[in-house]
């Protein structure tokens, strides 16, 4: 129970950090999506069930607090957690480079899911403009922060195992 509380606290802290601290020091309006990085790292280390579960929690937290359409972030993070958890079987756990590289496809999946929902809800989105002006700046931020987040998740994972 304490371990779950610890994970939840870290999740809340990371979310608070993402929505307050990093928005203030954002680069040209783009800030890092720590929830997505956290989900990817957990999925890599704990498998697809835990990954999807944590994605669900992270997405739910985001949808409940700041999400414009309830459920979009939940579905997106769950999907990311589920997909990247699939690879955890064939991975070395302390491999740090892979989560860093994976932050890019994870972001792509997250954007793809979000855009699909928006499209289904009747929004008109210019994909080329989106890729040019939104995706790459956000991707750079993700790559920069992927390693520290993964180290944090790795430490938490070790701590949880010891307890």
């Amino acid at each position, binding site marked *: 129970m304490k371990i779950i509380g610890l994970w939840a606290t870290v999740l809340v802290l990371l979310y608070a950090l993402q*929505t307050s601290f990093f928005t203030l020091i954002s680069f040209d309006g783009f800030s890092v999506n720590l929830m997505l990085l956290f989900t990817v790292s957990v999925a890599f280390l704990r498998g697809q069930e835990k990954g999807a579960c944590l994605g669900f929690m992270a997405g739910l937290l985001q949808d409940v607090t700041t999400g414009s359409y309830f459920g979009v972030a939940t579905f997106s993070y769950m999907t990311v957690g589920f997909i990247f958890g699939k690879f955890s079987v*064939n991975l070395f756990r302390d491999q740090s480079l892979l989560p860093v590289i994976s932050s890019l496809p994870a972001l792509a999946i997250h954007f793809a899911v979000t855009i699909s929902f928006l499209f289904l809800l009747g929004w008109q989105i210019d994909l080329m403009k989106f890729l040019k002006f939104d995706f790459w700046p956000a991707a750079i931020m993700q790559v920069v922060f992927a390693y520290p987040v993964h180290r944090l998740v790795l430490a938490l994972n070790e701590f949880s195992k010891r307890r």
Partner: protein
Amino acid sequence: MSNKIRKEKKTGKKFIALIVVFISVFCCVFFAARGEFSPKASSGVAMMIISPFQRAFSWAGSQLAFIKNSVRELSQLHEQNKLLRQEVELLRAQNLTASEYASENQRLRNLLGYKQAAVQFDLVAASVIGRESSSWSSVIVINRGTLDGVANNMAVVTEMGLVGHVMEAGVNSSKVQLLIDPRSSVGALIQRPESRVAGIVEGDIKNPGCPRMVNIPKDSDVQVEDMVVTSGFGGVYPKGLVVGKIIEMHNEEGGLLKYGVIDTSVDFQKLEDVAIIVASREAPPEPIQPPPQTPGTETDPYETAEKLQKAQQQIQEAQQQVQEAQQQQLQEAGFFNEELGIGNGE
């Protein structure tokens, strides 16, 4: 320890549960988009939990943003300062150039004015490009030579007066011996009509700035403040070029002659543009000016002349008419016929 392949067994139930969750969330999105589902209560609770952390992180973030913005502003200010300094330097250089051009423009305007006024001279404008000045020599170098029509012994002037003469004309530059050079001697006379005393202006080695007018008879009426002009004797300097004015008069040691110290009209320290007199001729006569008129009774001389012409014409016409009338009267009186008859009879 952790470098081992992770293997997990999937259970069918968990997988089905996951699919159910996915579908539920998927449906939730559309319900929420339609406004049929809104997690207001849970949103409030979540915000209540998160907000203290957000506040703390916001404060830290704002401090960091402040520092970041300050650093950026400092960087921008530094860049701006550098650019402004460059701009100031550029503008100063431009200002200096503009001042130089303005000064040159003024000098050339003055020289042009002199050239237009001195119609008896053909002038070639030149710039001073070199200067040799010592106690025993005052020579300048100008940027005109034989290619420009300059020859030895040509007089060099400015709009203020005489500068000197060309002592050595090169192909594209010339040496000019200044009036204040101790070796220089110029035939001069006092401009005042009552005086017109002739003398020689020569450089003074003891007082290089002020040449002397020597060979002035002791009983002449040369006074301080008299203007000195060239006399035209000797053929080098045309007559009437301003040399300067007498500021002091002294007796020569012999006692028969005296000399005057001259304040030259040309400032030899500020000599930049000069003109060489390449040819000179007699000055055309001044146009006749109408005599001064008594204030309050001024008339236009041209108009008066026209009126006079008209009056003369009218007088001539009147005289002609009188003559014609007299002839007619004589004819009517038969004087001509009688005279003719008498004449004829005779």
